[in-house]
């Protein structure tokens, strides 16, 4: 891909500083709280950027650009509807209980509020999920390094077989993440996430700038693309008239409410970043500070996808074939910089049932980088991508070692040990968490369907979660039995709904319909996902209420600090307005409305 020494120096500089940060921080890690919660001593702005970055893995960066190329600016709903409102909610209303209860993890909050079995259910499913997520991240990074031929010249020079590139990429990334988390724990992960945030911004601003300059600015883009691609709300009244195949209700309720609140408000991976904050107000400000850059990320990660399809189809830069061979046939099928997927054996483009080529949208970002960046800045762009893969992995690993040590090991295996013992366990679990991730990465290469299935199961487990937290925090009558059976039935409801419905044009199997009769066909799999989530959430909500009313309530004195109505409201009058969470939230909402009006 035409890398020269300057690109390598920039990449090596990044890796050296990542390890250096870990080494410097090692001195400050003395207790388990230092290791797992960064000593609860991090300023709000750092937590905020880490909160944002932990979620900004490279799959997100590459996936959002891919989705931008496929669906257009409507992808921004994943940010403007799908993230920001939930981030405001968790900051304003939920953080007081997470931070104030002194729980050390999200599952631990569930034990304080409900009971042991609810915590166990959440802790175990979460731990399994993080290991697989970081494994998938590792797999995706190794694949990208293969597809971009980053290491090919080095391997050729050393006379090594190119088939080893995948293994070297997996092992090297595992070792680097292992070293810096082993040494510096959560602080190290957070510091590197902040570094990654700035690298992504530094790598992508020039890319978007050059792309926009090339197509004639935003105005030029609107002229080159179909109208629905540059208007995020166009045709949202009916699923048949917009690129996503969902209607506005499914979008707002499914994505905006159930899925995004379920993720941003209950997922320990992100909440952990806020728990590391140095004060309650800092913890509440964390998601709000993250919301500001988050609102503008569509311009960095979705726009490159739009630009990639708006460009004239020149020569395709990359197709995911073995040697990067592009045939004339492939170029004819390309859409802008997006090539079709290619059959690795014949070199011919893959066609769907209607004879249209299946596009390889995931190559939007890599091809944009290669199209616009000369050597030098190309190294910076590549570093930004590698950094986001690493912190995606690191985020999962730090969440895993905390939940494992506090919620599984300390609760069920070895309680009453010294703090040093748990600190030691934290480091040990970092090692085996990463080892398991490597296994998961290899499992992905072997059994692609198994990974799809696992992700589906995680979706079922996650969908109802927010109902449990909502009732737990705002209804003091909710009980442990109610929460546990609500979660179980919500997960079952998700699976049943998925098993009885199918997106149009799909075959029965992993996409749905596996329970036999198909009761409903959705216009797209996105619509099916959103409605699966809505069903799961509603079932959990109703079952939790019914079971709670039938079971013994907890004493109110035990719920102080855990439930809204029983917790003293903190006054923020002494803070200047720009430090008050409420006023930050108001500013965010105003900007959000403006963005939706302008790009709507």
């Amino acid at each position, binding site marked *: 891909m035409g890398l020269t020494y*300057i690109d390598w*120096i*920039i990449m090596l*500089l*990044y890796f050296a*500083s990542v390890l*250096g*940060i870990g080494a*410097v*921080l090692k*001195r*400050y890690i003395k207790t388990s709280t230092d290791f797992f919660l*960064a*000593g609860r*001593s*991090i300023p709000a702005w*750092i937590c905020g950027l880490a909160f944002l970055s932990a979620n900004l893995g490279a799959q997100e960066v590459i996936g959002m650009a891919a989705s931008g190329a496929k669906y257009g600016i409507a992808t921004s709903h994943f940010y403007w509807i799908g993230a920001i409102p939930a981030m405001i909610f968790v900051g304003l209303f939920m953080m007081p209980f997470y931070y104030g209860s002194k729980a050390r993890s999200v599952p631990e909050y569930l034990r304080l509020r409900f009971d042991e079995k609810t915590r166990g259910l959440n802790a175990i499913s979460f731990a399994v999920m993080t290991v697989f997520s970081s494994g998938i991240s590792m797999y995706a990074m190794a694949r990208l390094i293969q597809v971009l031929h980053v290491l090919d010249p080095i391997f050729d020079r050393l006379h090594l077989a190119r088939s080893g590139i995948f293994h070297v990429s997996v092992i090297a990334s595992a070792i680097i993440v292992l070293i810096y988390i082993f040494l510096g724990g959560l*602080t190290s992960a957070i*510091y590197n996430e*902040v*570094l990654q945030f*700035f690298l992504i911004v*530094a790598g992508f601003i*020039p890319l978007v700038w*050059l792309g926009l*300059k*090339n197509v004639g600015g935003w105005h030029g883009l609107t002229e080159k693309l179909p109208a629905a691609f540059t208007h995020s709300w166009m045709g949202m009244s009916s699923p048949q008239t917009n690129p996503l195949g969902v209607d506005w209700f499914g979008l707002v309720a499914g994505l905006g409410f159930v899925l995004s609140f379920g993720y941003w408000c209950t997922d320990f991976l992100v909440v952990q970043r806020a728990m590391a904050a140095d004060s309650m107000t800092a913890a509440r400000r964390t998601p709000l500070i993250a919301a500001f850059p988050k609102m503008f990320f569509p311009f960095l990660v979705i726009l490159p996808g739009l630009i990639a399809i708006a460009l004239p189809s020149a020569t395709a830069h990359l197709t995911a074939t073995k040697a990067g061979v592009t045939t004339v046939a492939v170029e004819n099928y390309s859409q802008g910089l997006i090539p079709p997927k290619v059959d690795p054996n014949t070199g011919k483009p893959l066609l769907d049932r209607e004879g249209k080529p299946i596009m390889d949208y995931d190559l939007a970002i890599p091809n944009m980088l290669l*199209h*616009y*960046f*000369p*050597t*030098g*800045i190309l190294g*910076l762009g590549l570093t930004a991508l590698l950094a986001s893969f690493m912190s995606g992995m690191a985020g999962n690993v730090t969440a895993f070692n905390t939940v494992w040590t506090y919620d599984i090991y300390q609760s069920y295996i070895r309680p009453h040990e010294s703090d040093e013992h748990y600190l030691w366990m934290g480091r040990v679990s970092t090692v085996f968490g990463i080892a398991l991730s490597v296994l998961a990465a290899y499992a992905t290469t072997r059994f692609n369907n198994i990974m799809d299935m696992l992700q589906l199961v995680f979706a079922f487990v996650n969908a109802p979660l927010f109902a449990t937290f909502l009732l737990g925090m705002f209804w003091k009558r909710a009980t442990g039995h109610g929460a546990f059976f609500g979660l179980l039935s919500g997960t079952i409801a998700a699976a049943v709904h998925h098993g009885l419905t199918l997106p149009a044009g799909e075959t029965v199997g992993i996409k749905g319909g596996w329970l036999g009769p198909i009761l409903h066909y959705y216009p797209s799999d996105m619509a099916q996902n959103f409605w699966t989530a809505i069903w799961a959430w509603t079932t959990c909500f109703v079952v939790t209420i019914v079971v709670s009313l039938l079971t013994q309530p907890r004493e109110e004195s035990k719920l102080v600090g855990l439930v809204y109505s029983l917790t003293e409201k903190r006054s923020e009058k002494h803070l200047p307005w720009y430090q008050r969470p409420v006023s930050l939230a108001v500013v965010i909402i105003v900007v959000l409305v403006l963005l939706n009006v302008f790009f709507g």
Partner: protein
Amino acid sequence: MGIDIRLPIGFVFALVGILLTAFGAASNPAIYQRSLGVNVNLYWGLVLLAFGLIMVMLGRRGMRKLKD
């Protein structure tokens, strides 16, 4: 937590900035055909260098506060 994060970030960006600026100034203009004739290495290198220096400055001030 021990070190002010702006310090290492500042150093990384200042170094990358210097590298890109120097490379941009010395490199063959032909390679900038890709980037629409703009010497992105030079200009973006200068921006990153400035950003890095500001971060180092803020970081040093932060470190002094940390020690007090």
